[in-house]
């Protein structure tokens, strides 16, 4: 573990968050177009942990951001198909995305890149005209994750296929960051990393688990506790913009190429890892009426909020306040992909 006083320059953008507990240190910054939050115990671990998380986030951004012209995935896309030797980090990100697609039966498919761009999500969300009047183009169903081949670091991408790793990348980032801090601290203490509400933990959790809130849905946020694995939420109420007067959002049904229009406004899932939870939450939104059936089959505890504000719980997700999130089965997206979040 580096010296606690040695904080990387990038850490300057972090600001402390006073939660009322002195036994943990919490900090927050903007990252990857969203908010990154970090919590550690003992509190003196916060300095080095911030430096490690910064390193993970900047690496992930350079590897997988569609919106950075200098990112590795943008370099791949500019070639319009072919065979590419990827960095370990992007290879892991693509491998996890393809594993998630296989696990979810294609509900969370990384080949929706072209569909998202055709809907207008072709730049950082902050730069999108929210009231765009351009006509909605003909839908572009995803070509399918099976069209992409990854053999170790070698990626074969057909011409015209564009990848969007949005269903897994933030979960992967949280997993990587939590793992990096856990390894650096030698398991002395605990860490929680949240990227846009996709939460991974490492080390030893506080007594009874990390207290977190589930904010989507009617009424006040639901307090729960997370002692193992990860938790993530996908929602169609964020990242909305308009196209020809119609509201569109960023969770695309790969089968149609159009924004998912199922009954759920938000789905929260807890899983063995944050990337699993991230993929499953997106898959559940896309699955629509079949979401509960799919989640039950996958053995995943979940909280689903419909457009009317009704809340449903599956798989043992606690219905009360402060309940411990159940421990789900082993990871699906990291199976055969090496250590969880092991690449940087």
């Amino acid at each position, binding site marked *: 573990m580096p010296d606690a006083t040695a904080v990387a320059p990038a850490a300057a953008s972090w600001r402390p968050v006073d939660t009322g507990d002195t036994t*943990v240190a*919490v900090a927050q910054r903007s990252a990857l177009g*969203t908010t990154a939050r970090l919590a550690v115990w003992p509190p003196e671990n916060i300095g080095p942990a911030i430096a490690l998380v910064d390193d993970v986030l900047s690496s992930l951004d350079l590897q997988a951001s569609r919106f950075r012209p200098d990112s590795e995935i943008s370099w791949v896309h500019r070639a319009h198909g072919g065979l590419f030797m990827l960095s370990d980090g992007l290879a892991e990100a693509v491998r996890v995305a393809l594993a998630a697609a296989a696990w979810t039966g294609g509900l969370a498919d990384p080949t929706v890149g072209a569909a998202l761009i055709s809907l207008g999500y072709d730049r950082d969300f902050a730069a999108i005209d929210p009231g765009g009047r351009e006509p909605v183009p003909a839908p572009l169903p995803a070509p399918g994750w099976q069209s992409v081949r990854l053999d170790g670091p070698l990626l074969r991408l057909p011409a015209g296929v564009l990848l969007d790793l949005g269903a897994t990348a933030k979960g992967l980032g949280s997993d990587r960051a939590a793992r990096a801090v856990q390894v650096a601290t030698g398991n002395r203490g605990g860490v929680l990393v949240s990227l846009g509400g996709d939460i991974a933990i490492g080390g030893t959790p506080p007594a009874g688990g*990390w207290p977190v809130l589930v904010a989507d849905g009617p009424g006040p946020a639901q307090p729960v506790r997370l002692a193992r694995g990860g938790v993530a939420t996908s929602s169609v109420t964020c990242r909305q913009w308009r196209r020809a007067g119609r509201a569109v959002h960023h969770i695309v049904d790969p089968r149609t190429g159009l924004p998912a229009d199922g009954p759920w406004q938000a789905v929260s899932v807890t899983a063995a890892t944050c990337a699993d939870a991230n993929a499953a939450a997106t898959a559940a939104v896309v699955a629509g009426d079949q979401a509960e059936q799919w989640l039950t089959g996958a053995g995943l505890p979940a909280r689903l909020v419909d457009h009317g504000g009704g809340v449903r719980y599956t798989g043992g997700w606690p219905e009360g306040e402060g309940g411990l999130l159940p421990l789900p089965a082993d990871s699906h997206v990291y199976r055969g992909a090496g250590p969880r979040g092991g690449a940087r």
Partner: protein
Amino acid sequence: MNPDREDRGGRVPLPGFGDRAPGDPAPGGSAPGGPAPGDPGPGDWGSRRQAAPDRRDGIRHARRMSNWTLAALIAGTGAATVALAHQAFPTATAAGTTAATTGAGTTATAHGASGPQVGHSVATTSGSGVTVTTTTHTVKGKTVVTHVRHVPAYHDN
């Protein structure tokens, strides 16, 4: 995921090795090209035959063990298992550990043995980007907990 790269469990025979794994004894006692390390040499076969009566004697000796001895061994093993389980259970639950059984039949256990007590939420899972900050103040001797919701201008989930 490339379906051609699905994890293939089990042993894959290598050319020239038939169905044997390295180190497995070869039919006839030796691998092609000479005896494998650890294979008995010809002289060992003789000693095996020599040892056979002794082994049979040992079996007979074992069979002569009293049923009472066998029963005592079983009872002793069972008692030791119960004692170990009894010691292990309070260790796992004594130090603030909580457990919950899920609908799926799994059990989540929070090992809070060395973690601190944390009373306030440290993060929010939210697709809408809402974060909730919890602050605690003491007003006239009473603890007041305030939850403030923050809705960002934009957010990516």
